[in-house]
């Protein structure tokens, strides 16, 4: 019987901010880099960890491409896109295209 995997939920609006901003921390508060370092990377530091990370995207003012790319594309550049795609699950009722967009940033994270 397949082992049931644990799920960790991150609600960006509630846990991080309703006003996510740009790419780097030096750009201003609530950047993609800040979100990646504080909320995503701790779940990836243990190479054996394989629980799901459910990310709820709704409830914010909006997302700039630079925020999404640095948070999720940046994560994939560090821990590998396959690992990120396997473990991250995105939920958005307000904007269904957003999930596709993020997946694309992960897929294309290291295109030279």
């Amino acid at each position, binding site marked *: 019987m397949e082992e049931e995997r644990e799920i960790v939920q991150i609600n960006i609006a509630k846990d991080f901010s309703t006003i996510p901003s740009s790419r780097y921390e030096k750009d*201003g508060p609530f950047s993609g880099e800040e979100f990646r370092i504080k909320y995503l990377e701790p779940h990836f530091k243990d190479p054996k960890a394989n629980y799901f990370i459910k990310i709820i995207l709704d409830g914010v003012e909006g997302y700039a*491409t*630079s925020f999404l790319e640095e948070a999720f594309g940046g994560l994939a550049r560090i821990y590998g896109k396959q690992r990120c795609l396997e473990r991250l699950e995105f939920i958005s009722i307000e904007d269904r295209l957003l999930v596709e967009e993020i997946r694309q*940033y992960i897929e294309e994270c290291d295109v030279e």
Partner: protein
Amino acid sequence: MKKVYQSDKWKRYSQRKSERIIKKRQKLKAIKSAKSREFRENYKKIKISKYQDQRKKRKKITIKAPSNFSIVNNTNEMLSFFNDYYHYVREDKRIFFDMSEVLEMTEDAILYMLSRFNYSEKILGHQYVSGNVPSNLKCQELLMESGFYDHVHYSGNIEAPSGKIFSIKTKQLVYGETAKEVIEFAKNYLNINNGNQLKGIYPILIECMANTRNHAYDRLTNTIARWWLVAMHNEKDISVHFTFLDNGFGIPRTIRKKPLEKLAGFFIGLKDTELISSALEGEFRTKTGFKWRGKGLPKIRSYVVNGAIKNMQIISNSGYVFCEKDDMQTQELENRFYGTLLSWDIS
């Protein structure tokens, strides 16, 4: 036995000695005072002549503002006017902005004026600009309502804004809070309860602020560019007009050029409109060299294409681009625009 210092001889000797010392001190004091009087007088003369030289050098130059004080509607005349201003700033002249005959004014011109003042004051250290207000009441009202006087020295009475305009905000960093505030302003005027209808505005504003931050760092002056934002409600067609301006190097100067373009640029010159258009269309233009970067401008264009915003105009360096759903109109400008201006409408 009588002590020596109590004897008459000692007392006389001591008195003469004190008199000599007092005389010597008075003499020295007189010399010093004469010297300092002379020095003061000479210094005063030098200072006055220097000041007179400076006054001559900084003779007040009056530059007349175009009657149509609008970057988007009267681009070339306005840029020529600001070129004159820049020329006199470089010569360290005292400048007087004569705006008395301005009959029409748009908020983009106000932002550009503030951006030029900021550049000349903070970067070039020039502080000799003064001016008058337009005689036209509508223009006066626009200057007051836009919050222009909060950013310059103004001795008149500043009336409390009526709230028709989201007054000018300026910063150097990316601030989601400011973007949220301007969206709230737009929602109020457009009677929108569902925030999803304005979802595109927030990312556009963040992209604009981020572009200012990332592509406008001046290594020579060690300064980071600044952005200005204003939004205005239009009663006629129930819309809100957004204007965003940064005083960075401009899109054409900060995007990556292909080797052939560099060569062509060297011999025949590249058209700024073509560079802006291609960046908007999503060609690989980021100067970082990373393919995952440079997605901001194409994303902004996508909001025009999907109808979230309309009438988007971009002016940067010598390029003017008007974006429509399925078309882009371009025009090369006669004079250079310093920075990047983006404006768009939502209704």
